[in-house]
């Protein structure tokens, strides 16, 4: 196969030969190539297949607007589908293949779709596949789902590996005065001007080289520019795309760190997602050349004019030998020159009849001609042309390439992200950026300037605008007028094919044709948003960068309106697709969320704890001895607590220091029960309601001194309660002198529970006299020392119903405390116990936790009416009995036994009356456990009307999702030691 590479052209490094594979065959390219340029150099014409009709697709462009050359790169878990060959840099060993084709892109069985295309017009799937064809008989979704399987298989482009992505990604952050997007003449001028005015500047370029479209010029050398920028201290970021503009001049960047390297260091992230906080943004993102719709305008060999210039001057590839250029504007003539100088036979069809252009006559210009139809299927055989005045085939030109330029569309995308609608410019047949109040300035060809000098001037003006807006200067400036061609552009979007069933493509990847646009119009989908959604125009990987304007203009023509009346769709971020891996950065796998551990985490594990996730915490779940199951273990642990003593890490509880003269009043307002009479040295269990009178959280508060309390909250609600207290103090009760401080991390806590707990503690405290029943009665609090002079706080608080203490030390002493307590507990055959045993013990006592307090439960529902003070007002007191909340048929906390004591049940079981097992039931079981004390399963939960109503009735527990159903007996939730004699012991 002959190469299309020609000598003496291009900026590639011909000394460095790179080998790569395309569809399982070996090829060679050079350093500096893109995959597209290397494929073109190797004369590979077909690189993909289109979405719907599976038509052969070649390379249409040389940049991010590519909608034909989407290929799959890499293999196994590094397989990347849908990569634009035009922006993929070549590296040694690169493996690429065509996609959406079987067996390959050259011969694709699904190419049959092309011949059935007449039936696959836009929206055809809305009209069929509902039922049995042809008249859509039937009901339901089964028939659709039968067809859907095949449709799904046919759809999609490349296929993903389905394997975990082995690469790493990184998040990075930066700040600057000015970020300039695009390193074309305008962007560079803006950056230099700004740096000279002492602004801190970041210059972002999506390409591997700076220069923008100048890289398509044969005499362009960017090294001087690069030096100048660097000397000015400008941070240059190449291979970096500004993919989105967000509020307050925040820019999202994607830096491709290793995508161009053959065997990257695995310690380097593949890509980096930058969040840049700038004070001003200058966008010089360039403009994108449009194609023209005419029959078979998608045959491989069709390309934009500017792309062929890139391939010639940047990559040394002459993309055709007998080239026809079709245009409606002046921008193509320099390229026509250069292509013919490089050895191609060039003919220019210019739709305009009346214009002057200087040429050296090395190529033919056919004024007043437009392309009409391409002959060929996998490659171009010839082009039928037509006079532009009356459209019909007039003659046929033998050619192997057709280059198109239907005008240029400024890249206004980034501004569109900010909700700024572009305005149509008739003179230049394009959308231009509108002004915005935000600190964003558009420069260069992205504001419709076609001359380099104008672009440079606009860059400098853009920086002046930035300086003015930042309040640094007050200098007058003006932007050059849009345009810059000698002859005006003549709008040309479609050359209508006379025969029926044309294949004139508007959107190459999604196979949207001009006929589809006409059909959408016929069916009433005339707004741009409807057009887009009905035809999928502009919804492919390129997001309509090339084809959108053509679609709009066709709709405008059909509606007899002007393009501005039709409007344009809003471009959404990202500008070019961004990998989900980059967006998530390093927060993957185990690092998805931070792990919270208590200071005795390792101690617990070392002592055999199996851990369980509780919110972000890991807490000890159970401490199995050899061969013990969870169930064996927790039953043993709970029994041990009831018999002798157990130790449990309760550090994850929220802990809040409340200080200041208003503290007592504060607690009195936030808790439903009274705190005004709590003595120093005593703790009290308290319940907090929300504003709406529903229970929010429970916990204890310890009065350490006249104006100082130590509050504990539940693990799950700790952060919420803290914010809530701060909100109340800072917004509602600003007269209260109270300070709240989270001390959750500062204190390590254990519960030591069981009849022997005092004896264990006696051996652990410096002065055992401080914990006698007299000195430290139930709910007593003391600050004292553990042996070894370790300051601690001890409260006699019980969650298990046993004699129990909570001991807190500063976090640093956690392990020392655990060693000390455990050493002594062992002497009494004590145990370490985890959450499962803790749960068993509290269910036996009927204590509620988050499983019961689900955000819909009132204090009365929870059986805690006596905790609701009637002597004071507090948060929620006004609302807790509103409306139906005071009804007595509400679901009230009760205990449950299975009627057959050998049976088990689950939390989440619905409680029903025996003859009415359906609907909402009359209650639910919220927590269950095996009760070592009672020797059978028990539960707590809620039932309508409570214990009194049902104590003599057998109810049914329905648990259909776990295939269980059992008879239930309703009992008091306080199943063990209801009088609390053990706690007071």
């Amino acid at each position, binding site marked *: 196969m002959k190469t299309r590479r020609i000598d003496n052209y291009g900026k590639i490094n011909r000394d460095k030969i790179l080998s790569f594979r395309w569809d399982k065959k070996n090829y060679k390219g050079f350093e500096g190539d893109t995959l597209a340029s290397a494929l073109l150099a190797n004369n590979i014409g077909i690189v993909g297949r289109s979405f719907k009709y599976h038509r052969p697709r070649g390379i249409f462009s040389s940049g991010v607007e590519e909608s034909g050359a989407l290929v799959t790169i890499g293999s196994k878990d590094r397989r990347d589908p849908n990569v634009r060959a035009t922006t993929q840099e070549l590296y040694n060993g690169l493996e690429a293949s065509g996609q959406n084709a079987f067996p390959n892109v050259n011969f694709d069985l699904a190419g049959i779709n092309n011949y059935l295309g007449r039936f696959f017009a836009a929206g055809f799937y809305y009209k069929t596949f509902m039922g049995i064809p042809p008249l859509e008989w039937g009901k339901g979704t089964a028939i*659709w789902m039968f067809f859907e399987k095949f449709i*799904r298989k046919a759809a999609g482009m490349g296929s993903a590996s389905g394997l975990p992505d082995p690469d790493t990604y990184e998040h990075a952050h930066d700040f600057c005065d000015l970020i300039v997007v695009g390193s074309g003449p305008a962007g560079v001028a803006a950056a230099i001007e700004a740096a000279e005015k002492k602004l801190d500047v970041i210059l972002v370029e999506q390409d591997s080289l700076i220069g923008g479209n100048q890289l398509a010029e044969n005499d362009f050398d960017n090294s001087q520019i690069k030096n100048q920028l660097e000397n000015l201290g400008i941070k240059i970021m190449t291979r970096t795309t500004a993919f989105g503009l967000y509020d307050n001049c925040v820019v999202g960047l994607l830096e491709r760190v290793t995508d161009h390297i053959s065997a990257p260091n695995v310690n380097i992230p593949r890509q980096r997602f930058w969040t840049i906080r700038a004070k001003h943004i200058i966008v010089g993102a360039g403009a994108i050349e449009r194609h023209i719709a005419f029959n078979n305008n998608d045959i491989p060999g069709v390309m934009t004019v500017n792309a062929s210039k890139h391939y010639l001057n940047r990559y040394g590839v002459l993309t055709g030998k007998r080239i026809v250029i079709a245009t409606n504007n002046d921008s193509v003539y320099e390229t026509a020159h250069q292509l013919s100088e490089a050895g191609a036979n060039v003919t220019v069809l210019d739709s305009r009849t009346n214009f002057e252009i200087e040429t050296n006559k090395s190529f033919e210009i056919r004024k007043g001609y437009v392309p009409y139809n391409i002959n060929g299927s996998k490659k171009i055989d010839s082009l039928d042309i037509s006079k532009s005045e009356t459209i019909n085939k007039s003659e046929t030109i033998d050619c192997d390439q057709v280059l198109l330029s239907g005008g240029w569309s400024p890249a206004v995308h980034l501004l569109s992200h900010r909700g700024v609608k572009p305005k149509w410019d008739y003179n230049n047949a394009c959308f231009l950026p509108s002004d915005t109040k935000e600190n964003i300035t558009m420069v260069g060809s992205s504001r419709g300037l076609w001359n380099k000098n104008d672009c440079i001037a606009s860059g400098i003006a853009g920086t002046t605008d930035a300086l003015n807006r930042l309040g640094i200067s007050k200098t007058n400036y003006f932007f050059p007028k849009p345009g810059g061609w000698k002859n005006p552009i003549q709008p040309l979007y479609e050359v209508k094919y006379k025969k029926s069933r044309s294949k004139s493509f508007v959107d190459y990847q999604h196979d949207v044709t001009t006929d589809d646009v006409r059909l959408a119009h016929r069916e009433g989908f005339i707004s741009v948003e409807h057009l887009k959604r009905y035809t999928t125009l502009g919804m492919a990987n390129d997001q309509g960068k090339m084809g959108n304007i053509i679609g709009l203009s066709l709709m405008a023509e059909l509606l007899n309106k002007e393009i501005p009346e039709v409007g344009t769709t809003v471009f959404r971020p990202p500008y070019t697709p961004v990998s989900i891996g980059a967006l998530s950065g390093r927060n993957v796998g185990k690092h998805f969320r931070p792990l919270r551990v208590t200071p005795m985490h390792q101690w617990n594990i070392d002592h055999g704890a199996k851990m369980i996730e509780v919110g972000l915490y890991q807490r000890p779940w159970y401490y199995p001895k050899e061969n013990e199951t969870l169930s064996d273990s927790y039953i043993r642990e709970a029994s041990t607590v009831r018999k002798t003593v157990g130790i449990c890490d309760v550090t994850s509880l929220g802990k809040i220091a409340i200080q200041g003269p208003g503290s007592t009043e504060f607690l009195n307002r936030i808790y439903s029960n009274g705190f005004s009479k709590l003595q120093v040295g005593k703790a009290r269990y308290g319940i907090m309601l929300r504003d709406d009178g529903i229970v929010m959280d429970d916990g204890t508060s310890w009065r350490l001194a006249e104006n100082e309390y130590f509050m504990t909250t539940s693990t799950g609600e700790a952060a919420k309660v803290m914010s809530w207290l701060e909100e109340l103090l800072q917004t509602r009760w600003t007269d209260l002198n109270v300070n709240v401080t989270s001390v959750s991390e500062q204190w390590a806590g254990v519960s030591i529970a069981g009849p022997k707990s005092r004896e264990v503690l006696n051996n652990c405290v410096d002065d055992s006299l401080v914990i006698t029943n007299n000195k430290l009665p139930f709910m007593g609090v003391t600050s004292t020392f553990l042996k070894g002079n370790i300051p601690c706080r001890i409260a006699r608080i019980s969650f298990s119903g046993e004699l129990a203490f909570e001991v807190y030390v500063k976090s640093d002493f956690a392990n020392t405390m655990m060693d000390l307590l455990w050493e002594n507990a062992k002497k009494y055959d004590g145990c370490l116990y985890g959450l499962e045993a803790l749960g068993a013990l509290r269910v036996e006592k009927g204590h509620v936790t988050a499983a019961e307090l689900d955000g819909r439960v009132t204090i009365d529902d929870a059986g805690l009416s006596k905790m609701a003070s009637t002597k004071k007002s507090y948060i929620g007191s006004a609302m807790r009995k509103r409306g139906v909340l005071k009804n007595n048929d509400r679901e009230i906390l009760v205990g449950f036994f299975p009627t057959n004591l050998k049976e088990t049940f689950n939390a989440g079981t619905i409680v029903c009356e025996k003859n009415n097992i359906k609907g909402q039931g009359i209650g639910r079981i919220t927590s269950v456990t095996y009760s070592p004390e009672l020797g059978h399963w028990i539960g707590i939960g809620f039932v309508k009307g409570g214990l009194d109503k049902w104590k003599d009735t057998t109810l049914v527990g*329905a648990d259909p999702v776990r295939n269980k159903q059992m008879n239930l007996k309703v009992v008091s939730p306080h199943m063990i030691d209801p009088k609390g004699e053990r706690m007071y012991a």
Partner: protein
Amino acid sequence: MTKFNAWNVIKNGLNGQSYWTRQWRDPEPKSSYDVVIIGGGLHGLATAYYLAKNHNIKNVAVLEKGWIGGGNAGRNTTIVRSNYMMPGNHEFYEHSLKLWENLSHELNYNVMFSQRAHVSLFHSPGAKDSVSRIYNIMRLHGTDAELWDLKTLKKKIPHLNYHNSRFPILGAAVQKRAGNARHDAVAWGYARAADTLGVDILQNCEVTGFTRKNGNIESIQTSRGIIKGKKIGFAVAGNTSVLWQMAELGNLPIESHKLQAFVSEAVKPLLDQVVVYGVGGAHFYISQSDKGSMVFGGDLDWYKSYAQRGNLPMVQDVAEAAMAIFPSLGRIRLLRHWAGVMDMTMDGSFFICKTPISNLYLNAGWNYGGFKASPASGWYFADLIANESPHNYVQNHNLERFEKGINIDERGAGPDPKLHG
């Protein structure tokens, strides 16, 4: 109107698609209607359709300020399910699901409802118990619901992160009849069907004010002239408060928040179900469209907003949540992200109710679950407007429920709208 079926698709295929005509008319506004529905989204269009279909009220207009289906109808992640448990909610959403099951036939428009199963992962024994409560209630209502253990889950969805997940995947609660649909098709299908029954769909018809007479709204000022309606319904998710205040009705139990949605490049089939999960403060849902794009989303942007564009922190958050369970998504690229404005309510449940103005009816407060609700929402809103009293299922879905202490808060999150995602 040409019937949609394979026969006509083939016929038109042979005739250059020339027989197809407008899917709905573009009528001039009449001066008055029996019912005027404000809002040409899914709920408004469905309401108009059921007014005509179920109640034979055909002199109906739907007023849309832009283009039908241009709001949240076209901005959502298209999930359809009925795994609700609160009284009224469950029955309502289950009826909606039943309507979905035959919607393509009902409307003669393929809305592509794919009952591919909604798989809600759980990550702890406690979470399994809480979800069992909901799924048990579903079963006790005769709705399909089941639990998948880890083995089943691994077989059905092999490439979830079963190996090094921060929060282990233990199993899933599954509704097999649930799935996803083609959102735009639903709007167009209802529009075409309503139009066929005589409903006027008035696009580019923005409401600018109301004229009151004897306590009622007598006429509506619009960008296309004054339109009278004997009865008027609001169905303008996201902007309900704006219209409510235009009618001088004061405050509503609603805050507008924005929710982002995300779509990736199209790839060949990778995921056959709708997968959702919530753990560690994250919330995430994903499915694959028939076109091949991964369609996904997460939480609200966490601050009140009427802007239809999102910010970066939530983009990052959602990407992390995606990778947490779906580590192969790392190399899949995000193609587009955008935001819709949600009516977030004080208890996460909706309003289909009467208002202080006797000829005005309210349909609002869909939080971020409005898509699946569309058929039933239209059904029961039409029922309310026609019969002037709410159906049992929606008897508590009114503005008085807060004062009355009636709790239909699925999450138990309390009166903070942003917590009801």
